[in-house]
């Protein structure tokens, strides 16, 4: 059974139901019987949707080959930051657990070792702390340790 998905920029993708239901969001639409027509996905653009569907298709194809799947996943997630965030948001919206997990982990790894200034610059965040507030946070953090 094939389903039709429409991206935010009005591109139609035809996919096997088995592939598309990796998304819990789409799965519940199918189960509720709302998937007969084209399913609109206004929060995902065609570039991202193509990537996401590639992930889903490979997860169906390589289900039994753990090593190959892992190799695929490792290569898949090697994308630049803008694409990574798009993937992250799409995985969240479409509720694809393993992609969401992998993308979150990748973002966390990218935050590792960065200073607050560097993180702010990458994500365009404004620093809303006063110097006193910053000092207080640093002091408190001296208590934390990990075994």
């Amino acid at each position, binding site marked *: 059974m094939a389903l039709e998905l429409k991206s935010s920029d009005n591109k139609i993708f035809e996919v096997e139901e088995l592939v598309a239901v990796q998304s819990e969001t789409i799965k519940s639409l199918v189960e509720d019987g709302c998937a007969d027509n084209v399913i609109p996905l206004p929060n995902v653009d065609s570039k991202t949707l193509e990537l996401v569907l590639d992930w889903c298709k490979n997860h169906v194809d390589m289900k039994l080959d753990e090593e190959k799947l892992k190799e695929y996943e490792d290569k898949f997630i*090697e994308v630049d930051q803008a694409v990574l965030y798009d993937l992250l948001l799409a995985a969240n919206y479409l509720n694809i657990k393993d992609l969401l997990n992998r993308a*979150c982990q990748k973002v966390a790894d990218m*935050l*590792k070792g*960065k200073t607050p200034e560097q993180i702010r610059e990458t994500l365009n965040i404004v620093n809303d702390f006063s110097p006193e507030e910053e000092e207080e946070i640093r002091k408190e*953090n001296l208590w934390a*340790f*990990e075994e």
Partner: protein
Amino acid sequence: MDRMLCDELLEEIFQRLPPIPSSSLSVSLVSKRWLHLYRTSKTFLSLRLSPHNSTIPSLASFLSHYPSLLSLSLLLSSDPTITIPSATTFSEHLLLIVSTFCFKLQTLRFMAGPVSVSSLNSLSLNCTHLTSLCINLFRPIFFMWVVKFPVLKELSIFVSSGDGVEQATEFERENGLWGNEDFDAELGLESLCLSGIRADDWGLGWLWRSCKKLKKLQLKSCEGVGDGGSFLSFVRCLQGLEEVELRTCRSIVDGVLLKLAENCNSLSSLLVYDGGSREGLLRFIRQCNCNLQKLDLRLPLDLHNDHLTAVALNFRGLSSIRLQSCCLVTGEGLKALGIAMSSGLEELALINCDVVEREQGLLATLGQNLRQLRKLDLSYNEMLLDKELISMLVSCNCLVDLRLRGCKGLTKAALVSMFKSCKRLENVDIMHCRGIEAEAVELLVLNSPQLRQVQVEESKLSDVARTWASNKLIEVVV
């Protein structure tokens, strides 16, 4: 960009950050929104507190920021220059703060000083979800308060000698404030760890009688398990046990092992460190009719070849054998073990066992017999040569976990053999290996397709290795 990442997504990301203070600090300082979300996403905290008077209000305000805590560990940093007037009151205050602010807690490790039994009252009233508790108590020993923690499954108690607090507890006890010891309870405890029980301590009878579901028992530095009557109840407790650990309990090991062999049919894992007699251990191995899966022994003065031969005869189903500092054992005993375990052994550890260095060809023979080994630990064998290790790795191609911490005699050749022979390696520990340099580490990291974790000094990580590891999500523990 930041606004597009909703709260839940940010929390998911924060939960995947490495648990090191520098990461948490960077994230906390980005913006107020990030600080708030980071704190609400934190489900576990490990804190080291200084015994200062200012610590108490500071801890209160600190903990109030972390509403989602499920697991908390508190240690006191022992700074000899700081003394506070009443150490007891300090610990009790800390416990009270924890009880007040962290009521979702499931796991608590409170090692910030001994507390009295009465201070556990507020803990039991507020933290009703506690399933795992580790606490330091004063003697006299008294356990009826455990009933007040209905969902507790894991309990760990360190017993210390108090300074006058004993009288308060005695009073409560004699006046029945904690219930009547003549009636047993049905505790749901599955795992119990007791540390520091002295020969003259009594009061364990009620605990043994009430623990009807115990699966795991750990005793550390214990000189007794209770007087006369208690001992019979203790024996009954042994029946359902699956895991037993005895550390530095030389005076009671023989008795416990004897009763274990006589009464327990379900034992699957045994650990005995630093104290056990030769005869007692031998008798246990010969008499025990459990299908033991794991055996972990550190008995430098007591372990001999006859024990290993007996293990080879009686415990054929073992999947894991760990031996540390067994200086009286020779290759003969180990080879007998290797032959007997050739079909099932998955984990072998010979830590600081100089027989491995002394007898040439021993590792080669062991390797040939134990081809399906998945975990190997040869840490702290300082004179272990490349040649010996390589001869074993050549046969053990299924290795997933390899630990060689402190093996100062190993060089690059050993690492090359590692990735050539063991293509499934996921975890490697090569910390404190003086003979291994950055070049060798880089080769290992780049050529091990399944590698997930490497433990090595920061200084031995080349930039190439570091980048590669970062890209491949290989965790480097420095």
